[in-house]
């Protein structure tokens, strides 16, 4: 005799209930995907279709012209060479900034957890608070300092900025991760005669794979997506991708080329979306670690 499957866990039973749950989830999924869908679909339409047709309809005549325009011909501000150059700017900015801030974060986390000194809590607290400040509070001084250093309108200035203001987060990530790492291993290595850097290089770093990935993804996403610093500290040909996109979309000369705008937006979002799809698990960990007690 088959026994009845009594519900385990709240809200289990009932076929109607399940259908309702799935239905609701599906509705939300559609809502979440809608803007992306619209962007994609619009970017493959001719401007005529965009004006005359339905936003949600698939293109009748597929064309990649908007994409080519966005990349090489669109007008950003005064120059009309597409966003290719600005894409390059962003890459130039992101790679060193991510690398340096991650490395520094790792070393800082190492010191704060395995080489405790009096006042380490205060130091960490001060660095941590730096993550949370509204950047408006440091915008003016930073602009002055960058100008004084002669890197006022340059990618280098942005790299420096992102390293400085990314330190808090990277230190937080590594500090929490190394906190959970058994200190006995460090002590054992010390007894074996290993020094400060050796312990870091030979014991901690090799075990740091996951947190390095998490930190790199987090920093990459934040720095690539930044707009405030980009628009405040650079202009003209030196702006990163996000600023260029905004300028492109808000260029008020002539007819609004919605399809080109959308193609440009997707290009701008491409790298971070790709990273998210490939390494989503680590992305989530980064989000949570940056938000909650790690």
């Amino acid at each position, binding site marked *: 005799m088959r026994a009845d499957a009594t519900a385990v866990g709240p809200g289990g039973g009932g076929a109607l209930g399940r259908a309702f749950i799935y239905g609701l989830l599906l509705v939300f999924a559609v809502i979440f995907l809608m803007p992306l869908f619209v962007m994609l679909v619009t970017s493959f339409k001719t401007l005529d279709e965009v004006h005359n047709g339905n936003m949600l309809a698939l293109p009748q005549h597929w064309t990649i012209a908007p994409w080519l325009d966005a990349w090489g011909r669109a007008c950003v501000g005064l120059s009309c060479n597409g966003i290719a150059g600005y894409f390059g700017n962003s890459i130039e900015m992101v790679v060193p900034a991510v690398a340096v801030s991650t490395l520094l974060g790792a070393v800082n986390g190492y010191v704060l957890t395995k080489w405790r000194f009096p006042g380490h809590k205060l130091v960490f607290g001060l660095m941590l608070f730096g993550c949370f400040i509204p950047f408006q509070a440091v915008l003016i001084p930073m602009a002055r300092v960058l100008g004084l250093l002669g890197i006022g309108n340059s990618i280098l200035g942005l790299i420096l900025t992102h390293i400085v203001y990314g330190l808090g987060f990277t230190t937080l990530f590594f500090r929490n991760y190394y906190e959970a790492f058994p200190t006995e291993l460090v002590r054992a290595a010390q007894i074996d005669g290993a*020094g400060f850097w050796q312990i870091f290089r030979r014991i901690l770093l090799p075990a740091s794979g996951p947190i390095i990935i998490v930190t790199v993804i987090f920093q990459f996403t934040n720095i690539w997506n930044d707009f405030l610093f980009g628009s405040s500290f650079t202009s003209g040909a030196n702006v990163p991708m996000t600023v260029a996109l905004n300028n492109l979309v808000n260029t008020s000369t002539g007819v609004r080329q919605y399809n080109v705008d959308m193609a440009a937006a997707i290009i701008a979002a491409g790298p971070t979306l790709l990273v998210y799809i490939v390494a989503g698990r680590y992305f989530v960990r980064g989000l949570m670690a940056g938000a909650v007690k790690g």
Partner: protein
Amino acid sequence: MSSTTAISPAAIPRQRGARVQLADLLPRLVLAPSFAIVLVFVYGFILWTIYLSLTPSRMMPVYRLTGFDAYHRLWLLPNWYMALRNIAIFGCLYVVFCTGLGLLLAILLDQRIRAEGALRTIYLYPMAISFIVTGTAWKWFLNPGLGLEKTLHAWGWTSFHFDWLINTHMAIYTVVMAGVWQATGFCMAMFLAGLRGIDGEILRAAQIDGASAIATYRRIVIPMLRPVFLSAVIVLAHMAIKSYDLVIALTGGGPGNATELPSTFMYSYTFTRNEMSVGAASAVMMLMTIAAIIVPYLYSELRERAR
């Protein structure tokens, strides 16, 4: 710099003084540059900004202290009140909807759904894209004439009218919509993790006690998620106050100043209207608000770790 060879016992007493000092010093030396950077670029700059807010700086910084003039001026500007009104509306709705929807989605996903992984990816992807892209996409989506309005007309709902984007009273709500769309996935992820951390035995005890699904969630599960709520609210409030990119891309602060927020206010007064001291003053106000939220939170978090 640090010794890597084994020291014979005989050598230790003689060298101990210098070795110990070096060993103590090296970690601090290594940390020092980062700490110094933070001290200067964060706290030093904050002090600088505060200083500027007490000067009559306009386009260029002037370092003559004139007291709280800039603050007086700030609190007389209608733009500032608009910004405050907007941040209040935006902040509250943003936090409420994100946590509410996030909790709902998390509870739904916790019911052993088959496509859970895929759904989670869909709800979270907006967090990966820039606010500028979000703003651009939603600007197009809500475009009066070519966006949602036109689509619904084409589907037969001809009386639908959606011009919120250019409506001075409703524009701020479009910012709320786009913002909630972006951040709900994040709340969902946090709540889902919280739900998964609940001891299964407690749920079984509730079953035996005869609690229905709703009663179990209402009386037991949701109260247990209080710490998650707190974290979520803090992070969301913080994100709301810092919101700048989203507004710029979606409405540009307009129409007019209908979607002015403290962040856009600060930027425009500092760089466009050449009233640096007022801009600095507004930045200080933003900082104080965030500090009021974050500092107690950080303090309790760090203290708890000590135990």
